[in-house]
């Protein structure tokens, strides 16, 4: 079979190569399409637990014990996370001698102020049971881990006092409904944080349970992305850090657009020249709280008025006066991913009348900073007039402010818990808190365009950002 491949086939091959190689070399190539969706992580297929989980469960801890029989490491893994500790790692901050930790467990925000002494209410969003046992005992016991909060179908599960399951919950049904985490699980706490739908974030609220693509291009439409598609989770360690509960954040620990939008550039070179100074979010989240309003001011000093009518959006006797806003442009600041300042209990209040609960770090000189959208929440919070620091009241419970409407007793009650002395004289001062705007990314066609920021009716306050004037005329940095 010498002539299996006759010699002329070699010639044919040569001719083909001679023509094909140059043709293919010169042929205009379509730009390879960058498909960000290809980077969405694929997750393990979920096993239906309906027939696996057997009762009988009397307490949440009973359920956890059952879970841990198979998922042996789960509790240990979860207990390393801030979902459990409600406290950050230790930070060395320049304005304090000792290292500090930040979190809902030990610091305050400018919504419901602080959880210390208010565990019966606040811990309904903690991924654990048993806060009636006190913090130390509660935190030490793996059986207190609340698997159901994140894994049960929220339709069959809810939390009540001290982080324990609500009394009406059928624990067996809840346990049998467990599954991979969905937006509904995260949304229970993160959409309703601060005491109701959309209160805190402005870019996270209940409209994201069933979002339209025009509301959120990732969670809506065909992609129907879940939180964990970006907040990639391995061994219960969830990617992403909350600015307010940290001082600095290692970029490795943060979620970024580039996880999926790898090396993706705009067709328009002019837009690309913005990338060094403008975050993706700035243009692609042109407005926040698109459907559901978010709280923008909260005046605690008005709380406790007798006879004033309650209204969810303007006044509640227990909480004071609020304003909500909807579909509005965020506030833009230079931001390098860290806080320049985070209020630590005991810090003095601001000298000029404004105390920052947190203040994003960055300036026009900071090459790592980009212009970034924030929701600003402005509150009036109680402070100790003599000691000149913010006070954290006990609000819940039978002796809390919400029952007694007596600020003095609320502060006195809190003093031994927070360790901050109360002088007996309180006032109210303005506090600012900055929330990054990074969800509710809208389709590209709705992104900001040149005149949204530049020109006479542009939305940027160039002087405040440190520019001599509109960079379209004065030049960028």
């Amino acid at each position, binding site marked *: 079979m010498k002539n299996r491949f006759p010699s002329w086939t070699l010639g044919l091959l040569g001719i083909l190569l001679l023509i094909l190689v140059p043709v293919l070399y010169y042929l205009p190539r379509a730009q390879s399409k960058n498909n960000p969706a290809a980077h969405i992580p694929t997750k393990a297929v979920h096993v239906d637990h309906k027939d696996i989980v057997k009762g009988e469960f009397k307490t949440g801890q009973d359920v956890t014990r059952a879970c841990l029989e198979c998922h042996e490491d789960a509790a240990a893994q979860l207990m390393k996370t801030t979902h459990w500790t409600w406290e950050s790692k230790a930070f060395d901050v320049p304005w304090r001698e000792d290292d500090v930790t930040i979190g809902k467990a030990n610091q305050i925000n400018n919504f419901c102020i602080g959880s210390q002494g208010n565990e019966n209410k606040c811990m309904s969003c903690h991924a654990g049971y048993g806060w009636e046992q006190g913090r130390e005992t509660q935190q030490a016991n793996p059986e207190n881990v609340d698997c159901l909060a994140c894994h049960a179908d929220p339709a069959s599960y809810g939390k009540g006092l001290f982080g324990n399951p609500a009394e009406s919950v059928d624990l067996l049904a809840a346990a049998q409904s467990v599954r991979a985490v969905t937006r509904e699980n995260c949304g229970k706490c993160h959409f309703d944080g601060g005491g109701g739908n959309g209160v805190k974030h402005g870019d996270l609220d209940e409209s994201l349970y069933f979002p339209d693509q025009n509301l959120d291009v990732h969670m809506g439409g065909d992609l129907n992305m879940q939180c964990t598609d970006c907040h990639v989770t391995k061994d219960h360690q969830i990617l992403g850090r909350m600015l307010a509960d940290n001082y600095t954040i290692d970029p490795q620990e943060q979620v970024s657009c580039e996880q999926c939008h790898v090396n993706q550039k705009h067709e328009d070179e002019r837009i690309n020249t913005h990338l060094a100074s403008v975050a993706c979010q700035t243009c692609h989240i042109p407005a926040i709280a698109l459907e559901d309003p978010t709280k923008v001011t909260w005046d605690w000093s008005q709380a406790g008025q007798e006879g004033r009518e309650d209204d969810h959006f303007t006044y509640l006797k227990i909480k004071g006066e609020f304003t909500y806003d909807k579909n509005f442009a965020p506030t833009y600041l230079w931001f390098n991913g860290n806080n320049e300042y985070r209020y630590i209990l005991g810090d003095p209040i601001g000298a000029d009348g404004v105390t920052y609960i947190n203040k994003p770090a960055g*300036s026009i000189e900071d090459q790592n900073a980009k212009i970034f959208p924030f929701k600003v929440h402005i509150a009036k919070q109680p402070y100790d007039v003599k000691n000149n620091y913010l006070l954290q009241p006990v609000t819940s419970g039978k002796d809390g402010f919400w029952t007694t409407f007596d600020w003095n007793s609320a502060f006195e009650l809190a003093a031994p818990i927070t360790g901050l002395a109360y002088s007996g004289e309180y006032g109210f001062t303005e506090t600012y808190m900055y929330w990054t705007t990074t969800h509710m990314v809208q389709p590209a066609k709705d992104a900001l365009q040149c005149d949204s920021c530049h020109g006479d009716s542009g939305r940027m*306050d160039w002087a405040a950002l*440190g520019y001599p004037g509109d960079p379209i005329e004065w030049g960028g940095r």
Partner: protein
Amino acid sequence: MKKYSYFTLAGFIILVLAFGIGTVLASPEPAPEQQASVLHPNFALLDADGVNVLESNNAVSTMQTCGQCHDTEFIASHAFHSDLGLTDYTASKDSWDASTGTFGQWNPLTYRYLTQNGDERLDLSTAEWLMLNGDRVVGGGPATTSRTDAPLADVKVSKENPETSILKNGSPTAWDWDASGTMEMNCFLCHLETPNTAARADAIRAGEFGNANTATLLGLNIVSDSADGWAWNAEAFSEAGELKSETLGIQDPTNSNCATCHGEVHPSTEEPLTFNACDLNYPQTATTGQVISSQRINESGVNLAGKDNLDRSWDIHAERQLKCTDCHYALNNPAHVSEAQSSNPEHLIYDPRSLEINEYLQRPDHNFARGQSAQFNAAPEYKGTMRRCENCHDYNKGHADWLPYVQTHIDAVACETCHIPQMYAPAIQTYDWTVITKDGGAVKSCRGVEGSPNSVTSLVTGYEPVLLNRTNIDGKTLLAPYNLITSFYWVYDDANGNKRPVRLADLEAAYLDNGNYAADIVAAFDGNNDGKLSNSELVIENSAQEEAVKSKLLALGLNNPRMEGMAQPYSINHNVTRGEDALNDCKACHNEGSRISQPIKLAANAPVMPAFDAENNVNGTGEIVTGADGALYYQPMPANDDMYVFGSSRVSWIDWLGALMFAGSLLGVIGHGTLRFVSSRKQAKGQVRTERVYMYEPYRRFWHWLQTSSIVILLFTGLIIHRPDIFGAFSFRGVVTVHNVVAVILVLNAALSLFYHITTDRIREFIPHPYGFFDDAIVQAKYYVNGIFKGEGHPFEKIPTSRMNPIQKATYFAILNVLLPLQIITGALMWSVQKFPQFANALGGLPFLAPFHSLVAWTFGTFIVVHVYMTTTGATPLEAMRGMVTGWEEVEVHEEQG
């Protein structure tokens, strides 16, 4: 807010100071923007005598007021916006146009004619011209000065003189300029943030020209109109009697200022854009559909077809915050001095000698840099002074990564052609003044809208501009987008033998009788006999109607009345889009139904054949044709402009001839083959002794098959380039690339093969020997027409050193020496058009080369048919082909010759 003005310079210093002192920290409350206007000093408002208006209570004089610091005389005399053709004004026997500007050039849309001195009939006098057009006349020029360069007030009043009269109730009456006053160039109109244009227009329409400029200040809390004349508000003035500048808001002209006269401009606000379409108060929008706005089209309030997907802005330059004055700048503005550097000696890149900012502010040239639009011809000496696309954009950088033949495209196609692919606002299509509506208007039609142009229920469809060749000042001719507006009107010869448009007054007299259509007009036009004339009946469709109107015009004493029509191109240069929304599909032009030859509708009904307006820089080389729907169309004819567009242009006789040649040879070989087949069945086999010979060494086979593949690919890709319409699946650009690359392979292969044949002496095989050639050829031909059917042996032996018979030698000699070089040369020349167009142009350019290339291609195709057939005439039908594949061929042995 021009960047380099004194104001902003000072503003910069202030901002830098503020920046240095203040903290840089962001605060939630935005600081108010610095207004340039506060930097303009306070100044006294002076009347025409130079007296402060607070004392005189007179109207303000801009020349006196602004002239305190700025050289207003210089400004007014260097401003074509003010002059409007006055300095050019020369009465002409040959043309009814007396100047190049609005003052003197007849516009068939606005229709009314500015009567020349000595005309038989008065239509528009200077005063009435001003009353009609004054909204959009800035003042000065014809509003203050006579055609003979004297102040209007000094012209001797006579009702015979169109400069000092006005048509009242059908007869000329004297006009007293002293009473009406004249209208100085109105600085406020363009330099105030909110000039009161409505009050100004009222004053102008009332003929109170002297009050127009003061009326511009009404409502600004500076002056009010009282029964005793102007009442100046002392509170707006400082103790020194100077107007507080901040109350006035003096500024560099904004887009909104320009919009007052030029067309629709929508500033960047949340408010959805709506526009007045086909309304000559917004001329740029009316005539072309251009709308200057940074808003996304789909966010505007227009009921626009397919709007949802139009997420680009109306105008990319508006979106990117360019202002009208960035391109149309004052010519001596030192900020734009680099534009004037073209006259530098060759060695000098930059000449720093330019006006100081104070010199500029004192005497800013108000002749603004302008383009080369077809219809606006005032100050033609300034045409082409503005920044054009290429002054800011490097077309090579922007196109190199995807557009083949960049330079070829740039040399033939204006940027606007692709970057303004579609207009999204309606534009005027027809103005028919051969008939008039009851309110004395033309019968109009608008393109780009279904229904009435400004009704909210109408669907705006927009339109694709027609592409016409424009000859620029620099002599370059480029295809550019236009709207064509066709107007029809009556003309007559006046007593002086001058052709004039029939006056509106005469038209009204002919058509109307006490505000209704005259009975004989109704009789002639009332198609449905309902006693009324609807708009659709208002068209002259037959000679009876024409005669009816004509006889009435004759009765009015108009000599030789007749209808004329004119199709006028209106340039489209704004509403530019970025590349991704531009025309960027090759097949948009390189195809059947090319964008380049796309017709545009002129008029649904044409009372008379219109002529293409010749008085501009646009070449009307197309044809005006009647479409299948009976409407009149303008059909561009690229061939008339010596344009050859691959895929779109073709010379039909070449294709017919080529196809005939190809089909003929195909039929021939089929016939010959059939005869051979039939006759071979009658012959006994094996008459001729054959022998297996090593005929073709590897290289010969290799170059032959490489050449075969190349030619087949070239023919096929060439056909696709020629007729992309029947090969829709292929990417035009890709096919062109394959064609070019394979052509290079073919040329290299041919060259190497030639080298081989020369060096090995084998070239001899291809050279027919003159001695006995014809005899031998006849012998061979006889064999093909006779012997081959009888099973005779080939007359000439095929041996490795002499494989070709005489006819083959002659054929290859022709192909290799004539056709192949011709095809290579024409192909290379066509390719070279992008870099060295002079060579191709010397040989007739693409319009000659491309059809020639096609013809030779047809010949090659024909050759292949015959060649392949001839290979079957070997010992067995497939033997020769096998020889060319394996090298070994069974050939006849001719012992008597051997």
